[in-house]
């Protein structure tokens, strides 16, 4: 006889585990806690209905996310996963503010007169005219090529920041969250 042991869900529910059992591939008998927690929060029949509505190749991910949510709800019965979302949203907002400050700072640095853009030889009269201007010393720098490359480098960051900040930081407006294969 090649009878295999019942899956964790059929053990918990005290029923016969058939080969068509919808839970068996995702709740092996060696991890009874996984099904126990999902059953506690969602209920076995609800989980079964949810899995039946999904194609087979997506059920693994669905089970993983259900286990994650159930664990979060057991750890925090009031806020569950929403507590984590709220915390992460705050982090995103703070980082966006820090980015804005950093970008403003680098823009103000950029706005300062560039010391190395002008490599041309100045006439003595020009030097004398600029004597009271602190910027005159910047004209004598010889590393203009290097600085120009850095200025080309910056707009890439600014444009990427603009595109990332346009994505919603409001959790429930995000219509297409990115997907991960495993969550546990």
């Amino acid at each position, binding site marked *: 006889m090649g009878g295999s042991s019942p899956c964790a869900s059929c053990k918990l529910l005290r029923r016969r585990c058939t080969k068509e059992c919808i839970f068996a591939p995702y709740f092996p008998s060696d991890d009874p806690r996984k099904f126990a927690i999902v059953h*506690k*929060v*969602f*209920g076995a*029949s*609800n989980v079964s209905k*949810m899995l039946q*509505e999904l194609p087979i190749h997506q059920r693994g*991910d*669905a089970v993983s*996310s*259900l286990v994650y*949510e159930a664990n979060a*709800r057991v750890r925090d*019965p*009031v*806020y*569950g*996963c*929403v*507590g*984590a*979302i709220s915390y*992460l*949203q705050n982090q*995103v907002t703070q*980082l966006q503010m*820090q*980015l804005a400050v*950093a970008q403003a*700072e*680098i823009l103000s*640095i950029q706005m*300062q007169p560039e010391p190395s853009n002008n490599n041309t*030889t100045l*006439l*003595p009269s020009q*030097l004398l005219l600029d*004597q009271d201007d602190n910027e*005159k*010393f*910047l004209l004598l*720098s010889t590393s203009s090529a290097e*600085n120009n490359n*850095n200025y080309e*480098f*910056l707009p890439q*960051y600014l444009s*990427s*920041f603009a595109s990332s900040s346009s*994505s919603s*930081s409001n*959790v*429930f407006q*995000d219509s297409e*969250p*990115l*997907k*991960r294969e495993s*969550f546990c």
Partner: protein
Amino acid sequence: MISGRCAACKNQRRKCPSDCIFSPYFPANDPQRFACVHKIYGGSNVGKMLQEIPPYLRQEAADTLYLEAKCRIDDPIYGCVGIISSLYEQIQNAEIELAKIQTQIAFYKLQTQQQVEAEPNMEVLLSQSSNMGQFEWDNPTIASWFN
């Protein structure tokens, strides 16, 4: 009275008692709210969860259960875990951008500092020269340095 039933008791087609645990959080004028949580969690599970929470926190618990249920209905595979995943990625990208820009700022500040340190020498030299790149050794001010 039957007309005073909460959304949960209407959904379950039962009498709504005066101490119904659902009625403060699932009013009759929002039937979809209870329908969502019932579909995902089941009515009895929601009732059990609310009973285990102190009354002053039950409203928030009901709100978060509704939000999670709604996320799960909108995304049956990942639910709100997909949103968490997306937020982690946003945080990671923002941290990388911030580190890059801060490195850039540090580089500029270092450059500026080096220029400022080089300036005093240049200032003295320029103030004493009448021609570009030449020093007038017969200038009394410069000459006095070496006296």
